[in-house]
């Protein structure tokens, strides 16, 4: 009753925070009964709550007791598992060390309790109302496609990729790929003999440098496709390899023609796209090889793009993994805000 009176008297303010590489993005949406009054987004060059962020948030929240602070989880130990049964959960993650939730009793998403405690400690001055898993955001964003497709679904952020594979709303596989830590930690190093199951041990053979990419080797990695009758003929694949060569030339020509960007910037973008591609590729490989997952042949990939990926990634996916690529732009702040609003209604 008091809440209803309160909703007439006060605006509701949704503060949505997500980490962008090494900065913190704060999306604030102000709502009343009729709808959204205003929204504002600002990035801060820090991942810890500092005075500027607190002042920015306080400016919007000081006039109302009805404000909700949401954070998108960026823990590297998070993930999702294709089960919601307590017995089966331990096959995919350690329940004792994880905090988990079930999505419509079909699959579960989890994160490290330690990381949640760390977040809680970082935000202790302000407090948090919601911490959302990117898998939930991704699922809600592509709900219309997930219900009717067998496809890969990606949420691409600046330093991470949330990957999930759904078959008509049934989760087959999910993995959270932290690009920065993976590459910074040299998990892709050839000499690294300690790679675990999740590490992309085949990637180093292909190298980050596109010049050294052997497309045939890449195709050899996809031998699992060989048993599928509907797969296009090898000749068609070879056509793709031709296209890949053309693409390679196109990239080189793009580099030369684009005078507004320095060479190093282009190389950086190129590396980032290729890093994403290799990470996705190795993740898909795990899906096909790991017996825990009910692997099925995937023909399409839906990308929720929050950073504005270049066409290179699309090309890699289309030409090296033969996937139909569909890209949809996502405003992460807005999506988190919608989820927070759904949570309180």
């Amino acid at each position: 009753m008091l809440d209803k009176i309160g909703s007439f008297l006060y605006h509701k303010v949704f503060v949505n925070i997500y980490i962008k590489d090494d900065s913190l993005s704060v999306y604030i949406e102000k709502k009343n009964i009729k709808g959204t009054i205003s929204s504002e987004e600002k990035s801060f060059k820090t991942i810890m709550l500092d005075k500027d962020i607190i002042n920015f948030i306080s400016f919007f929240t000081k006039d109302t007791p009805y404000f909700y602070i949401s954070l998108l989880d960026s823990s590297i130990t998070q993930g999702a598992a294709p089960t919601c049964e307590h017995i089966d959960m331990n096959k995919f993650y350690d329940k004792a060390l994880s905090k988990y939730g079930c999505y419509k009793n079909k699959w579960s998403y989890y994160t490290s309790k330690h990381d949640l405690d760390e977040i809680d400690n970082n935000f202790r001055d302000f407090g948090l109302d919601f911490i959302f898993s990117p898998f939930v955001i991704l699922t809600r964003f592509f709900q219309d496609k997930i219900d009717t497709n067998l496809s890969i679904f990606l949420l691409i952020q600046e330093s991470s990729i949330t990957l999930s594979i759904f078959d008509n709303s049934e989760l087959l596989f999910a993995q959270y790929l932290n690009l920065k830590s993976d590459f910074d930690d040299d998990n892709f190093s050839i000499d690294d003999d300690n790679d675990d199951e999740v590490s992309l041990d085949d990637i180093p053979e292909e190298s980050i440098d596109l010049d050294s990419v052997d497309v045939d080797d890449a195709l050899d990695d996809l031998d699992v496709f060989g048993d599928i009758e509907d797969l296009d003929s090898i000749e068609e694949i070879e056509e793709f390899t031709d296209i890949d060569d053309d693409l390679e030339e196109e990239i080189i020509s793009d580099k030369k023609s684009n005078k507004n960007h320095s060479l190093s910037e282009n190389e950086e973008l190129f590396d980032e796209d290729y890093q994403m591609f290799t990470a996705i590729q190795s993740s898909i490989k795990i899906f096909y090889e790991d017996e825990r997952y009910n692997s099925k042949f995937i023909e399409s990939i839906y990308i929720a793009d929050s950073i504005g990926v270049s066409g290179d990634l699309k090309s890699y996916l289309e030409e090296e993994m033969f996937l139909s690529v569909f890209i949809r732009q996502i405003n992460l702040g807005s999506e988190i805000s919608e989820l927070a609003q759904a949570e309180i209604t």
Partner: protein
Amino acid sequence: MTYSYIKPRTKSLITSELKLLFIFFFITIIMLLMTYLFLTYKNYAFKQDHIYIEKSKNDFSDNTNKMNSDIKFIEKQVAISKKIFTQNTVLKDSITNMFDLVPERITLSEAKLLKNGLILYGITPNKDVYNFMLQAPLHSIFHHTYSSFYPAENGWLYFVSKNYIDEDEISEEE
């Protein structure tokens, strides 16, 4: 629908400022209420004291009246006692005087003191001794004196002397 790892904090319509204001008003109301109750109690106690004091006052007044009446009664008693004492003194003197009146030769056997008179019984050697030595003084005291004689065995005479004072004179004396 709960897809968050944590539960949202409870949002209250009452902000910290309102909470402070409510606490202030609450404390004020409590203090006013306590003051009201204290004053009500004190008022009740005062009324009770007033009733008790009023009752005490009445009791004291009654006691004072009673004591005043007792004092008056005692004063009256004292006056009476003084009068009786005076009368007794007078009577004693009268008896002493009376016995002084009786000569040695006459012997009294009985004397009755009346309110307005004196009756004497005795024996006298003869009437003359009686008449001259006793009746004469009695005459000077009493208004009416009556004497009667009858002979005794030894030749003497028994006598009865009745002496009275007038009623008017007695009332005047009083």
